[in-house]
């Protein structure tokens, strides 16, 4: 029994150290990525297209829906307490600092996190990674770094996009339900919005981007030889990314408000 527990602890410690080393190597290779001519630029462009551009529609719909819901709920509840103007503060906090980055990260986890994990896992099972090594291509530099950089930049851009649609696009939705004068809406919004709110959201997106892309890549590379391990890598990548993003969100929020 004790032997089994010991073996399990040793295995967990070894996986943790391996994950740390993997993360360290990804960071090291990311810093060197733009220093020389890279065969990975094409992978980077594809990653931005897939993670950023192709997620624009679902991101915009979600942002507008959340923004509209806050306006509709806020404009009917807050006046009862004489706090109508708080609606804009709540909108800015929820959209730019809290839900915006987190929901954007969730969209990216569901779309790109699974895609990266299963694609890399398929490459491991198909010996494609060994083939890259055999011709002198470092899989971290060629396969992981472009995905990390692509996902981080896409998440930051998607977060800005979420802010735009959540704050301005939702105005259009609200016109259909409960018309508000644009000038009043826009001026109140600007009064509530501080550059720090936008920067805070972008910082969260940056952290989430690093988490999702590294976890997905790590899980992709962690499979053995069986094709049945490929979907398992995707599932693990999603689960761990969700948990780590929420954990990071809590830590960053605590750091901001503490």
């Amino acid at each position: 029994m004790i032997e089994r527990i010991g073996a399990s602890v040793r295995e967990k410690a070894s996986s943790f150290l391996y994950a740390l080393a993997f993360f360290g190597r990804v960071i090291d290779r990311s810093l060197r990525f733009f220093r020389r001519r890279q065969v990975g630029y094409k992978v980077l462009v594809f990653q931005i297209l897939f993670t950023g551009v192709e997620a624009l529609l679902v991101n915009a719909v979600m942002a507008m829906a959340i923004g509209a819901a806050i306006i509709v709920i806020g404009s009917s509840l807050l006046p009862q307490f004489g706090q109508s103007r708080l609606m804009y503060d709540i909108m800015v906090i929820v959209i730019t600092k809290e839900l915006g980055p987190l929901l954007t990260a969730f969209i990216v986890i569901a779309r790109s996190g699974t895609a990266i994990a299963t694609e890399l896992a398929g490459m491991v099972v198909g010996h494609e990674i060994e083939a890259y090594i055999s011709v002198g291509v470092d899989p971290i530099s060629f396969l992981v770094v472009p995905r990390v950089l692509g996902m981080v930049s896409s998440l930051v851009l998607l977060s800005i996009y979420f802010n735009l649609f959540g704050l301005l696009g939702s105005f259009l939705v609200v016109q259909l339900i409960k018309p508000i004068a644009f000038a009043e809406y826009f001026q109140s919004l600007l009064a509530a919005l501080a550059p720090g709110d936008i920067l805070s959201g972008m910082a969260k997106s940056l952290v989430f981007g690093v988490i999702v892309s590294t976890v997905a890549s790590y899980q992709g590379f962690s499979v053995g030889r069986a094709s049945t391990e490929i979907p398992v890598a995707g599932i693990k990548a999603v689960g761990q990314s969700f948990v780590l993003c929420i954990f990071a969100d809590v830590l960053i929020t605590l750091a901001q408000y503490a």
Partner: protein
Amino acid sequence: MNADTRSAPLLELRGISASSGGSEILEDVSLSIERGERIAVMGPSGSGKSTLLKVAAGLEPAGSGHAFFDGRDIATLGQRDELDFRKRASFGFQDGALWENQTVLNNLALPLRIHRPQLSESDIAERSRALLSRLGFTDSLGVRPATLSMGERKIVSIARALVLDPELVFLDDPTGHLDEDARDRLYSVVDALVRKGTTIVAVTNNTGFVRRFALRLVVVANGRVTYDAPMAVAMAAEGIETAARSVVARLKRYAERDRLDEIEEKR
């Protein structure tokens, strides 16, 4: 290259052991391979032949022991030496291991783009096309590997291993999935490698390939090298140890059959 590395064997394995999932795959394997040697690694399925080849090529880590290329430990090569090693030693995979998200052309072009940056894209395409055509690949180079048959994938994989004109080629089951015509074309390409003095280490149980190209026979059984001798010695030897006996007996049987076929043809 300094004086020490010049005198060292091209490839040397010292006390290599490897395991997977708790079971031992290789146990204390040592081999020394000189420049220009052509080695056939034979043995039963699951005996550790492919693992031995991958450890020798630095594609799988050894649990213990060391693999040296040109006197340098493969596991501790710096970035520049690693690139040099990959340029000089290439690997043809048993199941192709083609990059599925790349075209056939890009599967051959990537090693050239990395190791021969002076080549233009048209030179790269021309060189790739010429090599594939010598191996009998006639499809478009713009297709993805998913559309290819197993034999065609094998051809592309071998072409990728040879496109850099390496000094040392590891071939894992080079004749697998190939029909007779494709095998003949592969033989003529390997003939050209032999003329150039390329060192070849092939894992195969194809007796035709072994008798035509191998200068040395290594038999692996249960993760150990159980027989290692020049082909001429192996073919002449009597009463060799059990693990290698069936391999050598098979080689002799096919050699005898070919000899009788030749006599028949002459008649």
